[in-house]
């Protein structure tokens, strides 16, 4: 068995049993692993209409064939489930060391079914599985839980856990591993909480077998060289982390500020990657087998820990009108401890600030610091309360869409399919906006990062305001991203590597016969099954949209002044390229071509 371990661990929390099944290698080849294989398995087993927080929803933890291999950045895993935030398929990805350790412990996939009657955690040590009592760690924050379980399960064990936010079923709850790495988006932590599952601990000593060690050595060296020589992965990211983006996004006038009411922040320098490195950075951090080391570890006053990332700095910074980087670091720390998605949590606070300043949220409703833009104490206090569902924090824990809806103005939530949009104003980046609107898991920047060509000039520079060719770029980026997410690699490798490189890596590890084209095709296949799941779960194609503000209110000032997003001009071409109907529904012909129809017939 090469790449894959060939084993699926199926755990039933209701009767506290487990069984080990063989991995379906035919499906693994077709859907690769991680996001693709996880979605396929999930669709085969779970009714798309399932209530995301019911015992009938399942939680799949899925590695890729390159997870745990010597491939650069080969340490990632994917959580696949139905999202309590969006109602769509959720696939949330994380790095660190946990994913590789699951492979070393002997499994490619964990399927968690039903709900435990009391809090439990799962321990997996070299194939030996135990479902243990977790009452002593229930209610504890992420770092404390991790410390307790590492001690309990022994040296070198790796811990994936939820914090109080997941236990309290916040729709913004993340699953954390290695203390500060997150499968952050779409509320996957709440699904774990709904099952009374506090943590999964893994430890193992088996290796990932490689089909062609000499071939891998060669393609490994070539890939590593490309990553090291690339300006972004070899210099920009290692030196400044993802926060290096603050200034460039702001200089283009697309840094959303005060809940997207503006797109230029004249205080951006204070929260930039350069300032972070100068004032707060303690050390860099790297995930398993990562030559990039974009992770930051920062300290401010008595608080220290992993992060913050660009997205977090923006969500709690510019989007909340805050320029005190120290307090943004503290808010990030509390997100990690509570187990909250920093993007959705920060944007929800920003939404609350607009609701408060416009008089929808009244003083008597909030028992704490006023939710005013620029209030840098509020972002810390309300993050803690959101994590604990304390007072008004209970409403924040529902996310920005449901919060704004409570006040009759859902359009003030800057979200797609109820998931908060990340840190790039699509009004000034037309292709990226199309990607936001069509993302199968709702507002997301890592489903097709068109910032790369439209802002950063990689692999070539596109005019960010033009529409020509953007649908083609969006589709290509979405498909390639789906494949990388399925391999078990970090998306940042794509700054330096192309589809051909990924094909060479998986072929050397698994003995497959992938080409650049087949990598794209696998990605397209994955994109289509995600769409099918959404349609069957009741998410209409009309949800491929952007908030009204971004379509109708021009950017008021800065380098992108006067622009709105022209989604209605882009969508028809995009659907046509996908081979979907004008209404955005995959056609039988395209499903046939991608080999999806035959799988559906078998399921």
């Amino acid at each position, binding site marked *: 068995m090469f790449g894959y371990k060939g084993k699926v661990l199926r755990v039933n929390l209701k009767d506290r049993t487990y069984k080990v099944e063989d991995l379906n290698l035919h499906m693994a080849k077709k859907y690769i692993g991680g996001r693709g294989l996880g979605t396929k398995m999930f669709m085969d087993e779970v009714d798309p209409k399932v209530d995301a927080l019911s015992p009938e929803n399942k939680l799949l933890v899925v590695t890729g064939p390159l997870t745990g291999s010597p491939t650069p950045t080969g340490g990632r895993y994917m959580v696949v489930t139905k999202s309590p935030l969006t109602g769509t398929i959720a696939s949330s990805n994380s790095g660190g060391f946990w994913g590789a350790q699951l492979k070393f412990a002997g499994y490619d996939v964990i399927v968690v079914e039903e709900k435990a009657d009391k809090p439990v955690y799962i321990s997996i040590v070299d194939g030996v599985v135990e479902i243990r009592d977790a009452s002593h760690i229930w209610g504890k924050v992420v770092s404390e839980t991790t410390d307790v379980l590492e001690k309990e399960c022994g040296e070198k064990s790796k811990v994936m856990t939820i914090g109080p936010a997941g236990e309290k079923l916040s729709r913004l709850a993340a699953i954390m591993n290695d203390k500060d790495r997150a499968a952050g988006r779409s509320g996957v932590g709440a699904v774990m909480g709904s099952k009374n599952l506090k943590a999964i601990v893994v430890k193992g000593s088996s290796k990932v077998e490689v089909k062609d060690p000499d071939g891998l050595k060669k393609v490994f060296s070539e890939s590593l060289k490309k990553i090291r020589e690339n300006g*972004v992965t070899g210099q920009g990211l290692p030196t400044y982390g993802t926060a290096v983006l603050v200034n460039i996004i702001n200089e283009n006038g697309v840094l959303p500020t005060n809940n997207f009411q503006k797109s230029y922040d004249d205080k951006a320098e204070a929260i930039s990657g350069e300032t972070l490195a100068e004032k707060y950075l303690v050390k860099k951090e790297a995930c398993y087998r990562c030559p990039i080391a974009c992770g930051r570890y920062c300290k401010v006053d008595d608080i220290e820990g992993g992060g913050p990332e660009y997205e977090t700095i923006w969500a709690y910074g510019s989007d909340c009108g805050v320029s005190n980087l120290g307090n943004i670091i503290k808010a990030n720390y509390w997100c990690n401890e509570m187990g909250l998605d920093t993007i959705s949590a920060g944007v929800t606070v920003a939404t609350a600030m607009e609701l408060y300043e416009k008089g929808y949220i009244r003083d008597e409703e909030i028992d704490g610091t006023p939710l005013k833009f620029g209030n840098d104490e509020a972002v810390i206090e309300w993050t803690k309360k959101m994590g604990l569902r304390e007072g008004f924090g209970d409403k924040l824990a529902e996310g920005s869409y449901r919060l704004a809806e409570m006040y009759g103005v859902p359009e003030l939530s800057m979200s797609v399919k109820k998931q908060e949009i990340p840190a790039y104003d699509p009004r000034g980046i037309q292709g990226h906006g199309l990607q936001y609107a069509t993302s199968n898991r709702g507002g997301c920047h890592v489903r097709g990062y068109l910032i790369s060509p439209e802002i950063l000039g990689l692999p070539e520079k596109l005019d960010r305001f033009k529409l020509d060719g953007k649908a083609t770029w969006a589709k290509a980026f979405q498909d390639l991203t789906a494949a990388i997410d399925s391999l078990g690699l970090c998306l940042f490798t794509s700054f330096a590597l192309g589809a051909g490189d990924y094909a060479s890596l998986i072929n050397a590890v698994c003995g497959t016969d992938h080409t650049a084209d087949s990598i794209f095709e696998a990605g397209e296949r994955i994109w289509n099954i995600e769409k099918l799941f959404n349609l069957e779960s009741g998410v209409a194609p009309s949800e491929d949209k952007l908030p009204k503000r971004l379509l109708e209110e021009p950017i008021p000032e800065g380098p*992108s002044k006067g622009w709105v997003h022209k989604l209605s001009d882009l969508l028809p071409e995009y659907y046509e390229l996908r081979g979907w109907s004008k209404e955005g529904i995959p056609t039988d012909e395209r499903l046939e071509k991608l080999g999806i129809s035959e799988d559906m017939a078998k399921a």
Partner: protein
Amino acid sequence: MNVEVRLFATLREGRGKKVYFQLKAGLTPRIIIKELNIQEEDIAILLINGRDGDFDRPLMEGDYLSIFPPVGGG
């Protein structure tokens, strides 16, 4: 009248965050970059007033330049 040049990331090393050049006829980004002793191949993104810039476009009153080495993230 000065042209403001904003430098970012590693391009700040030994040069600072902002540098000002006196505006005179024919002043272009290429001339400024040479004066700053920056290799053109080290520049990934050049913006004039927040829009994609041209190395040889003569600068005008009120223009500002933003110069970046390769950067990325997500």
